[in-house]
């Protein structure tokens, strides 16, 4: 009984926390606009007249993108630090951090998204092969 009462109180706290959080969402405007989120939610078939839920989804997406970008940034900085060990000049030149497909694919792999790109594009099947093995 006591345990139940405690759990009930806990639930009430959680409920209030959730409702407070949803209320606070109306103050915080996420970077991802509401119209975009509404469009894609409508496309998926999710119907909801409540604006707070749309804000919740927007904030969740923003969190996801921020995490992925952060991981990519870490990869980029790590690569630059590795290069700096060899040449100190590059530290001055490559101060700019640029989001590349390489870093992005590494960070996305942890989230279960496989983004792979071609290493290079060849114009014929025998490109890059030894001249002896080519049938010409």
């Amino acid at each position, binding site marked *: 009984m006591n345990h139940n009462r405690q759990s009930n109180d806990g*639930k009430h706290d*959680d409920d209030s*926390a*959730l409702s407070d*959080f*949803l209320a606070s969402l109306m103050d*915080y*405007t996420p*970077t*991802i*606009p509401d*119209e*975009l*989120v*509404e*469009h*894609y*939610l*409508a*496309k*998926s*078939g*999710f*119907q*909801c*007249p*409540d604006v*707070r*839920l749309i804000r*919740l*989804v927007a*904030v*969740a*997406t*923003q*969190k*996801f*993108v*921020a995490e*992925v*970008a*952060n991981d990519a*940034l870490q990869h980029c900085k790590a690569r630059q630090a590795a290069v700096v060990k060899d040449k100190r000049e590059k530290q001055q030149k490559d101060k*700019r*951090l*640029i*989001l*590349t*497909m390489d870093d*992005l694919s590494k960070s*996305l792999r*942890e*989230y*279960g*998204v496989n*983004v792979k*790109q*071609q290493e*290079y*594009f060849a114009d014929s099947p025998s490109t890059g092969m030894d001249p002896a093995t080519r049938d010409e």
Partner: protein
Amino acid sequence: MNNGCLENRKKEHDNSRKRPKSYKFGSKSDDFALAIAKVAVGQLCESVGFQGFHLSALETLSDISVRYIYSIGKTANLSANLAGRVEGNVFDIIHGLEDLGSNLGFSGASDVDRCVVSSGVVKDITHFVGVSDFIPFAYDLPGFPVVKESTKTGSFWEKGEDPPGEHIPSWLPAFPDPETYETRLSVENETMGVSNGKKSESELERVERNMDRSLLNLQLRFAHNENKGRSSHGSGYVATESNPYLAAPLHVGEKQVSPVVLPTKLSNEVALRNPVHVDVGNHVSVLETFAPAIEAMKSGLCDPDNGKKKLLYDQRPTVRFKIGIGKKSLGTISDLNSQNEEDPLKIASWFGNDNEKDDKKRRVEKILKESVESSKE
């Protein structure tokens, strides 16, 4: 990209613009939403610390974020439908978030009796909101996609009419007005005596008559405008109302037209056919200019073959067939058309090919000699 603060850099292998992705995110109708997503993602990356992007990387990340939203919606809708609801609520969304975050994990994921309300996902998001900066979206967006206003079907209910008969529901389109298909009793019964069976034709005829009337009014209006334009020519330029193509045709002599220069042969025939042609000024001037030539022609004509030529002119003035006696006719051509001394080369050119010049020359010379001899005779 679109923001002034973000910069783009060209890369070694640029992905083609055509997206080989699933149709729902790669179609042309989604371009607007994807562009907005790119801007938003770019802003987020900038806030994280990036100073530039590769375009392909930005496109990939924005596409993935859009799919994230889509999958949240799909999972939330699925859980709402499973619970027997059409509209989703917050618990459905939290379920969706948990599903997506399950591979990375969130606090409390392994609890058996966990409540959705106290989910670790929500706590993470709450923490994130508290930590992150407030970055508003760069542009003001209208609600999209824009919903087209549906045209009224014109149902009975909309028109406020009672459907004739109880078997017809009120949401069906209303019947057309009886005026469109019934004969008018006032005028048409007089004109069409026995036409009770031609109800449909009367409607057609009425429509045609209306069309004719409107066309007539239009023409009258243009004529009226034209008259207006002529009278008030000094006041203003009546360009919009007076259409030159619909104006009344001009009478002969109303407008000064540049004279037509007829070719010499035709003009001579005209002169011979109509020696006194005064009322049209153009022909007179042509006559005057070509008078000496005509006189020369006449003199040339009268000498050798008088009767034949006159016959020809009486019958077919436009086409001149020189039906002479072989060599004589050729001689007359040469006499008529080259008033100066004959150039054998010029005459040779009438006979065609330059390849056989020598043979032709000889032949021509022979003919000329013979014709000269005959004329002398």
